């Protein structure tokens, strides 16, 4: 993932990303050919954007070498029917990875709220977590 793609994900369009001077990538002259005298008077315009805070990078947790014999938590964040999807996944694990222990939990609070007790439990008793988000 190069810098441009990453930053365009942060909602910045490429032209802005490059920070290129507007003049440098001049769009072609007005289509009507003859550029009217008044039309080519030049102005400067200020950037209307606010100031985003720097982003603190969070390193990802080290991976498991295998899931065999491990305990995986399936976490439902409370979206409609999210729990039903994870229950199907539980069935899938039981069929395809019988030696993987699957624990189903529903996160407390509405979908944006944190649930420290649950994280603590997963950290202590689980090796990995799969979380279902969305509608």
């Amino acid at each position, binding site marked *: 993932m190069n810098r441009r793609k990453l930053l365009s994900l942060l909602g910045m369009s490429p032209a802005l990303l490059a920070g290129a001077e507007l003049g440098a990538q001049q769009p072609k002259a007005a289509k009507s050919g003859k550029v009217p005298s008044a039309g080519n*008077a030049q102005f400067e315009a200020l950037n209307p954007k606010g100031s985003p805070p720097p982003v603190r990078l969070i390193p990802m947790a080290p991976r498991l070498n295998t899931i065999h014999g491990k305990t995986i938590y399936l976490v439902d964040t409370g979206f409609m029917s999210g729990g039903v999807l994870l229950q199907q996944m539980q069935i899938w694990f039981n069929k395809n990875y019988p030696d993987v222990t699957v624990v189903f939990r529903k996160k407390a609070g509405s979908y944006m709220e944190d649930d420290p007790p649950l994280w603590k439990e997963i950290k202590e008793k689980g090796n990995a977590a799969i979380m279902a988000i969305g509608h």
Partner: protein
Amino acid sequence: MATKSFADLAKSNASKRGMPHIRACFTPHPVWGKTAEQLMAYVEGDDPVSGKPLMKEIIDGLTVPLTAEDTKTGMMDVNVGPPVFGPDTLDNLQTHFLNNGMTDFLPVIIPTPEKVDAMLKGTSHHPDEVIGKMAAGAFAAWTYTVKQVAVNAVMAGCEPEYFPVVLAVASSGMAALGSSTTSFAYSMVINGPIRDKLNMNYTIGAMGPFAQPNATIGRAWTLVGKNLGNGGIPGDTYMGSQGNNTNYNNIVIAENEKDSPWTPFHVQKGFRPEENVVSLFSGEDIRQGHGARRAGVLENPMFDDQISDIFRTLTSQFDALVICDPLTVRRLVEQGYDTKEKLMEWLWKNTQRTAKDYRDSAFVYTFHYPRALRGEEPYATWYKCPEGTLIPYWPKPDNIVLVVAGGQTNPFFQVGNLTYRVSVSIDKWM
């Protein structure tokens, strides 16, 4: 694991929170409303975004060793482009602002240094003063200065005299283009002498495109939400499935204080009558009162009953902002409601539904049920009482806001399914 519709949002959100390489995977959309069999097919099927089998992708995500990129730490700046664009022609600048998502896709006044300086004369505050933080939905909040707000006020078409109102709104940090899959609406009520000083319209056509202060102050709020809060990027920081037409200019209501026998809204909120105040609301929409069961009755129209009738069509996830034409208020006063509080009390008591209907509403399950589980009142009681119990629509009368606006060509009213959030002094920003 999210659903396909959230692919862009999930990746960009993870990046903004510091984990750009998170191994997210996706199921088809939606999950809501699908049967167990259909959801099993999701599990056994492919991730529609990557095209790979979902479960294989999940297991790989948990087991494939990390790369150097995955474990990087430290800070990363976000680039918003140069402080100044140009020099270039007006047409090219207009196109540049349009093509880089800095507008509402309508023409703007090009914010030249001269115009921004002229706008800054509308306030005593220093251009570099940081006045607020704004986040579109659950994203990192951006900060902004008086000058950055001024740029957006110029673009919207504001006059320098309007600038204190725009600053007051921006200082609230309340984004006009919040991000949710619901397409929210936003409203502001303006009280105090500034309404007449700026020649705001609170009579015929009050909420329509007929007065520069109403139109451009409302529009500035949207541009502030886009440029200072990084909101309004469809699929990323704006997820409203269908969009809301009121987001162009928002619902700007200057209260018609001179034709109203009731206390102005800001005085209800503890401000003195001569103070200039802007009060902000957010919610769903605004509807007209014509659907009420006695709408248009000639003799004794009973507007209290009509307003209550429209309330039952709202979602109680948001409160009610009732905008009465002075003629409607005159009839209500003749019915005995000489204060807003009396009508708020009657409306609160007489707009009821069964606990069963309450628990049946989708929004309530998602937002009130968790609070009921924690024992928060009145939700805990509303979830425990017998199904047939009649309960009020909202916790208390204060959830009903009454405001007066209109030109008295007919006794009408409109009802916004909108919740009062905050009031901000405009004088502070003069």
